[in-house]
């Protein structure tokens, strides 16, 4: 039996960091561009988690229960509701950008030949999305999609009907802060009144088939790692079957490992040099700089070579090995990480490569100046909230999946690490918030792991750890790590 260690905690930290990052992205964008330190952001996560319930477990949603039946939760009625919600939400989101003009393609980077084509394209897109969600239900992935679409529509409404009013009045930051707090309680307790406070869960018992093997998505997988005299051994154990089954067992001798390391270093350094030669001065370049590119290239090389050069061995005895550790994870947890990275990359492309992204970055620096230079700040504001809402919803669904519970207070308690991430990142850019989020995630899990080694402490102290990190950083640098100075 191999026990889990620091490596496991770090992986957990990365997974935690993923949903914190998805929350922090929205919060930091809204903080920067709309000047709203949104205490209600956690509630967007919570609502997102509940919306996915509509798809995943419609029988557990008040009112919708009447449409669902026991044998088949997703009846025709439920599918119709889901279709309408998805299609309506996506069209509504487009409308938010600029009303009818947006529907006619006003927000497209290229002008459509005629408005009719744009309208048709939007309608088609909405119908396709709606069909996907309705047909794919009760898959949690469809839930993810619906939650993202609905919150992308709902998030901006808060700005339009609440915060923009305060901004127009020139309200003080303190007033806006209190208003967001008020909104947080309106949202949280409306949901509680509607759904009642009882704990709900997603129903995920999905399996995927890879090369003839079926994998259970949500059940734990163990990755054991041994260091022995002859080299290293990696074993992948699946706990879904009983008894636990070994899915993969392979070893590397020391010379092979040395080769892998040398090649990795070479590729990594090469990528580093390549990136350094044509680096820009924009803020993305500051974050996704040569070091990150080098590390990523190295990591890819390492994993590829590691898989290719493995040889079959017998499982060593943990007691005889020089070092043995176990990482406990699941396909679901890993896909959360992948999903977050994909979304972050998509956001990066949006910010850096599109006109809208440029406008958003300009508005983030100085909204008034952006307005003077002819940027459509209303559209920027709406986009900001659309992204914030969509990302928050996805984060909420992820939290519901990872922690197996959906309760009205779940958003409020994730708000603290999310805020901590944004403040750690120094508020200046969304990239800072992402870095901050992973820092917070790792601090929570590694801190909890080490505290738990020393004393038996309760897992509820994880959030406190994120906060202690924040307080310590603020003590040293009151403006955060990447503060504006």
């Amino acid at each position, binding site marked *: 039996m191999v026990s889990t260690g620091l490596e496991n905690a770090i992986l957990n930290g990365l997974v935690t960091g993923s949903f914190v990052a998805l929350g922090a992205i929205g919060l930091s964008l809204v903080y920067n561009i709309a000047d709203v*330190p949104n205490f209600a952001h956690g509630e967007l996560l919570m609502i997102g988690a509940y919306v996915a319930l509509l798809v995943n477990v419609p029988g557990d949603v008040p009112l919708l229960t009447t449409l669902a039946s026991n044998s088949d939760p997703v009846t025709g009625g439920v599918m119709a509701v889901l279709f309408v919600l998805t299609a309506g939400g996506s069209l509504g989101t487009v409308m938010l950008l600029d009303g009818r003009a947006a529907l006619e393609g006003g927000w497209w980077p290229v002008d459509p030949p005629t408005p009719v084509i744009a309208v048709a394209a939007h309608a088609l897109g909405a119908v396709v999305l709606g069909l996907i969600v309705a047909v794919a239900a009760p898959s949690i992935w469809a839930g993810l999609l619906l939650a993202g679409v609905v919150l992308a529509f709902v998030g901006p409404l808060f700005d339009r009907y*609440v915060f923009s*009013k*305060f901004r127009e*009045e020139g*309200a003080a*930051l*303190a*007033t806006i*802060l*209190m*208003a967001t*707090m*008020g*909104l*947080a*309680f*309106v*949202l*949280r*307790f*409306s949901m*509680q*009144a509607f759904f*009642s*406070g009882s704990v709900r869960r997603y129903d995920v018992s999905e399996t995927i088939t890879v090369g003839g093997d079926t994998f259970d998505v949500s059940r734990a997988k163990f990755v054991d790692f041994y260091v022995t005299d002859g080299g290293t051994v990696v074993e992948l154990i699946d706990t879904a079957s009983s008894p636990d089954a070994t899915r993969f067992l392979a070893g590397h001798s020391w010379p092979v490992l040395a080769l892998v390391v040398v090649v990795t270093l070479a590729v990594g350094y090469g990528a580093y040099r390549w990136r350094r030669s044509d680096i820009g001065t924009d803020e993305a370049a500051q974050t996704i700089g040569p070091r990150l590119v080098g590390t990523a290239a190295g990591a890819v090389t390492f994993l590829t070579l590691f898989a290719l050069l493995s040889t079959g061995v017998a499982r060593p005895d943990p007691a005889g090995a020089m070092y043995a550790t176990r990482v406990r994870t699941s396909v679901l947890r890993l896909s959360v990480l992948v999903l977050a990275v994909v979304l972050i990359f998509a956001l990066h492309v949006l910010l850096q490569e599109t006109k809208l992204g440029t406008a958003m970055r300009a508005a983030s620096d100085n909204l008034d100046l952006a307005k003077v230079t002819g940027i459509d700040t209303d559209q920027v504001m709406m986009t900001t909230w659309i992204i914030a809402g969509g990302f928050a919803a996805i984060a909420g669904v992820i939290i519901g999946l990872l922690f197996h519970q959906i309760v*009205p207070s779940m958003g*409020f*308690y994730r708000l*603290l690490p999310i*805020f*901590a991430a944004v*403040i750690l990142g120094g508020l200046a850019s969304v990239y800072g918030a992402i870095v901050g989020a992973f820092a917070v995630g790792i601090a929570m899990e590694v801190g909890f792991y080490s505290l738990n080694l020393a004393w038996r402490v*309760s897992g*509820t*102290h994880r*959030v*406190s750890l994120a*906060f*202690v990190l*924040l*307080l310590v950083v*603020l*003590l040293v640098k*009151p403006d955060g790590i990447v503060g504006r100075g």
Partner: protein
Amino acid sequence: MASAGLLVSVATIAAIWALFALGLNIKFGYTGLLDFGHVAFFLVGAYTTALLVAPPAETQQFQAYLLGLALPDRLAALTGLQLAGGVGWFIALAVGTAVAGLLGLLVALPAIRLREDYLAIALLGISVIVKRTVQTETWLANGPDALRGYPRPLQGVFPLPGYAVADAAVFGLVVFAFWSIAIALLSREPLLDDGIRSETRWSTVSNAVFAILTLGFGYASALFARRRRQDNGGTPLLAIVAGGALAAALGSGLVAFAYFSPAVLLLLGPLSVFVWGYAGVITCRHFTQVTAREWAIALALASGLLIAFLPGRLVDDGPLGTDGLVPVLVLLGVYVAGSAYLLRNWSRFGDGTNRLSFLGVAGVWVFVIRYFLLDSLDALPDIEQAGGALLENVLFLVSYRGASISDGLAFDYSRFLFALVLGFLTMGYLLAELSVTSPFGRVLKAIREDENVAMALGKNPFAYKVQSMVLGSAIAGLAGGLVAIYYGTLTFRNFDPLFTFFMFLIVVIGGTANNRGVILGAALYWGFVQLSNDAAAALPTGSAAVFSVRVALLGAVFIAILYYRPEGIWGERSIVQGGTEE
């Protein structure tokens, strides 16, 4: 069933919350510190106090906690006096207050220099950490379960009458608290200037009534206090205390000679009536510009609310209990639409007073109907019972030994707590007023307005903000100690970050940087809570979601107030001349 007990209970918790909110008002209202973690100090005060008075944990079943010093019991055992237990409680409250203040200091030192939004989130985080620690650490204060089994101050003495010496002393204390506050309030009354032999009949009558209700000497000391205040700012405190002490001596003397019922009747009966009379006078004066016609419209509005719930009472509940629900909801819909129409077109219906005053009058009517009429109406075919309910509601400071007044009078623990809490609230209010009307308070306001100016004028914002945090936190800690008495058990659920939100709501509703407004805010908050509970109870189904719906509504109200009337109902009280009198 009369509502007097309910009123006393709600008024007690409202007074505790007022004290709790006074602490936030010093931090946020006067100094501009966004303390989103105010509830942490309330928690620390409550648990510290409770752990100091609780018996050792070993003596309790299924309980584990630190300390357990059993201060009241030890003091009582040491001196052989039951009353010494009360002193133990005072010590525990003082320590709880001090520890909360100290936590305020330790939190403020690192956090206070952060910009306001960071400060808010940092303090919110601290309150969450404190709450979670209490929630998870079993050894500290019985973990996620309730901390119970600690005694409440002097509970052994109640219900009066019982053990004679202690009875007399406790009753004297209660009478002293109630009477001093009443005399102090009366001494602020401009009507007194006209005297009993006044030219206008109204002031003659009202003065005479006040004089009778306060047994003559209360009136005299109020008069004396008022004169003292008017002559070159002499201190009125002596006269007030003397009046209160006289009443206390009279009361405890009577009790000592075993005239318990007469003592209660003489000293608390008229005082109850005095409270209503005084409240009536200041309400009428506050709404002088409201015309009789508007009073009548407000009455209609208030009774409409009652009528909307009528079907719920009349329709016999079926097995599902939903028979009355539909008509109630329909009527409520009509009522809400009608009120909205009325308020939106107020210029057409009213005689020119503002909407806020009108709503205030309607609120007064709602209270009057709910408190004085509803119980009697419920009992109606039985005239005697209806009259009894009304009498019990009017004489709210008096409790009965049996079912009615003819069984003799008693004095129960909840009214004692009310006097205790009211006394602490008065002290807290005076302390807060003294602080903020002084040059110290002036500096706090300057820091709130513009820290750089304060610095350019030689004030050290850091030192003042820290002091403000300590003072505000200590007051919250005292309120926490009182709430530990009030509940009799403590769980972490009573200290959710949600309560900080309620505090902000209370401070903003009444008027930021207005200590009286804070008390009004707390009263309105609990009035609303009680009203919503009543409404839920009147619905045929009852409602489990009443709490959620209420908080959601309050959130919406909060946003609306911040947008439409950020200065609150009474606004900031300006201290133009810097004195204690406006």
